[in-house]
């Protein structure tokens, strides 16, 4: 019983990194992968409505922290540095989502460029802040130590890798005539990004052993094991294989990051009092099947190559005379 809430939180956070890594990473890589208006349309429709189903994992995780692990907040937001990182993260999140929701609502180039800027800038802000958050947590709440920055670089590279792997699959056009340049470019990028992530990860691992670079790990052996998993996963794609393998290894690597943080630190994970557990359990368990059905149905429907029309992509035709 004590273990269930911890498991729930782990699943939610890992789920967020694995799933949302795709849309955040693809948003970051947009300037490189989508150069023509048609390519940009396809890229946006690969991200939306995918993001609707992915960010809820984080919203749910925040809820679980608030309701079942209130003491965790002291660790997460302790100190002004971490508070600032999460405040900026929230801002980047809002910007990215606003760009996605608004992009197809007005049919002018200026509007679209503004929304694309919000999408790209917001995605980078999200990834960088997650990087600093991970690094900061592993540095005892100081997000700007050399070790924290190396961790941040690795996390950012992993987000990009995840996005490129996702793009290689989803940016393939539906018809035979259109160009698949974006997908090919994404596939090519996966190798470079995997190597970058590997390099940054190794640097962080080395710094963790060097005194005075910031690392502050409660349980270094667990950290080592989890870090080895991350590095092995990215290592597996960095030289040998094309984009296909990176779809799975990038998921493994990014999903292992929160596990690394969770195991390396000694976190205050005391179980909630029975009344709270009963309430949350009774309210959430009956809806679990619906949560699963919805998520599975959404990803099944989105498995095909992204279309370049629809609610998030097609701007309104303005009727004559208005």
């Amino acid at each position: 019983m004590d273990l269930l809430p911890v498991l729930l939180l782990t699943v939610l956070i890992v789920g967020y990194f694995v799933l949302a890594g795709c849309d955040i990473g693809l948003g970051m890589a947009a300037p490189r992968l989508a150069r023509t208006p048609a390519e940009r349309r396809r890229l946006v429709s690969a991200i939306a409505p995918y993001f609707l189903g992915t960010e809820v994992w984080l919203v749910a995780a925040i809820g679980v922290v608030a309701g079942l692990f209130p003491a965790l907040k002291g660790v997460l937001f302790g100190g002004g540095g971490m508070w600032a990182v999460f405040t900026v993260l929230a801002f980047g999140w809002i910007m990215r989502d606003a760009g996605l929701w608004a992009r197809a609502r007005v049919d002018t180039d200026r509007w679209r460029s503004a929304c694309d800027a919000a999408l790209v800038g917001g995605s980078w802000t999200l990834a960088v802040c997650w990087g600093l958050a991970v690094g900061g947590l592993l540095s005892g709440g100081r997000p700007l130590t050399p070790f924290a920055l190396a961790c941040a670089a690795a996390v950012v590279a992993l987000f990009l890798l995840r996005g490129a792997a996702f793009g290689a699959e989803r940016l393939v056009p539906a018809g035979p005539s259109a160009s698949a340049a974006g997908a090919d470019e994404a596939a090519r990028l996966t190798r470079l990004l995997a190597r970058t992530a590997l390099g940054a990860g190794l640097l962080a691992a080395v710094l963790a052993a060097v005194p005075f670079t910031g690392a502050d790990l409660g349980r270094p052996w667990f950290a080592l094991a989890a870090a080895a998993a991350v590095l092995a996963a990215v290592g597996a794609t960095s030289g040998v294989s094309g984009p296909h393998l990176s779809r799975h290894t990038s998921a493994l690597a990014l999903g292992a990051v929160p596990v690394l943080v969770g195991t390396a630190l000694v976190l205050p994970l005391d179980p909630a009092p029975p009344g709270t557990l009963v309430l949350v359990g009774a309210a959430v368990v009956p809806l679990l099947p619906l949560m699963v059905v919805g998520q599975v149905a959404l990803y099944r429907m989105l498995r095909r190559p992204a279309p370049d029309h629809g609610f998030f992509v097609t701007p309104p035709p303005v009727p004559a005379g208005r």
Partner: protein
Amino acid sequence: MFEDPLLLARVQFALTAATHYMFVAFTLGMAPYVLFGQLRALLRVDSTGMRAVRFWGGLYLVNYAMGILSGLVMELQLTLNWSGLHDMFGYAFGAPLAIETMAAFFVESTFLGLWIFGWDRMGRWAHWSCFLVVTLTAYLSAYWVMVSNGLLKWPAGFSVRDGAAVLDDPAALMANPSATLAFAHICVSALLMGGAVVMAVSAYHLRRRRDPDGLFARALRTGTVLVLVGLVPTVVTGGTQFVMYGQEPPTSGQSYTPAEIEGIESAYGDTSTAHLIGISGDLLMMLSWAVMALLGLVTALVWMAGGLGRWRWHLRVAAVMPLFPYAASVGGWVFRETERQPWTVRHHLTTADALTEMSPLAAGASFTLFTAAFAVLGITTAWLLVRFARLGPDAGPLRAPEADGDERRDPVTPL
């Protein structure tokens, strides 16, 4: 003002919450309208009806986006700025919010994604069922949020041990009168708002004689019915809440002695700014209701005289209807939240103690960042809503693909 983190955080919360609620109330009011519209169109295999659903559904989605964005900030703001609340009440106040995010919002957003993407890709009933889930979970969301919020006003269902609230009676938490009555009040007032918006948009188009397939004439009638039906239950569910005034909440005395409570409240006084703002909110709400009741009555008479949808002076009047439920809703919330002062959780936790310790610089930066972003996003969304409402069904965000004469799309299952 920029020297006082407490004031900044309070104003920031009030602005975000008011913005959030304006969009949320529209979500709650429109969802049943879209749901029943789609059901009717399905049962009658009616293409005009489906055109209407695509139109109102498009407005719903534009609005929903801002509901989500502002809701995220609410959640993060509670976590980042009001940590005192979580330190003491995490297990009681945070638990219903945790349920809201997991059970209600998680499902709502996923199924909304399915509904948006599924227009041409799913069976008709499967597609409708997605929106059924969206509507039910939107109301479920609202209920759990109100359970959290009701706890602040009427703390019940827990006992305080070692300075932290331990939830020991979940049933009392869920049946909290300050949550259930307010939830009922919110449901009916949101229906009022939905009805008023439908009336106003329809009247705008009818006045310009733009209604080729009778879509807006029918919507004007439905909107009027919604408003007329919602008026009395709004007073009843709102008015019943006055019963709790002047009563001590059940857990009073567990954190502070009655003498201490007395001291804190009298130090704060009855004439504080927050209190005065709250009274104005109350007045605004009641007055708006009175105006709506009057306009509703006039509309009923016009209908009986056969002038509904035809008399131009009345169409002009109907077009301003939405101002009043919006004003009343913000007024109602301002009343509810300021009336609680100086407490965040009545008789347990003062607002000053609920605030996260932060430097004035940090508080100012967070305030500036989010207030500016909110102003831009809120105004943009409102502008888009008005724009799409005016453009009409042919240019809506969810208009049928055939309408574009665009041959790039996938094969379409006829609806």
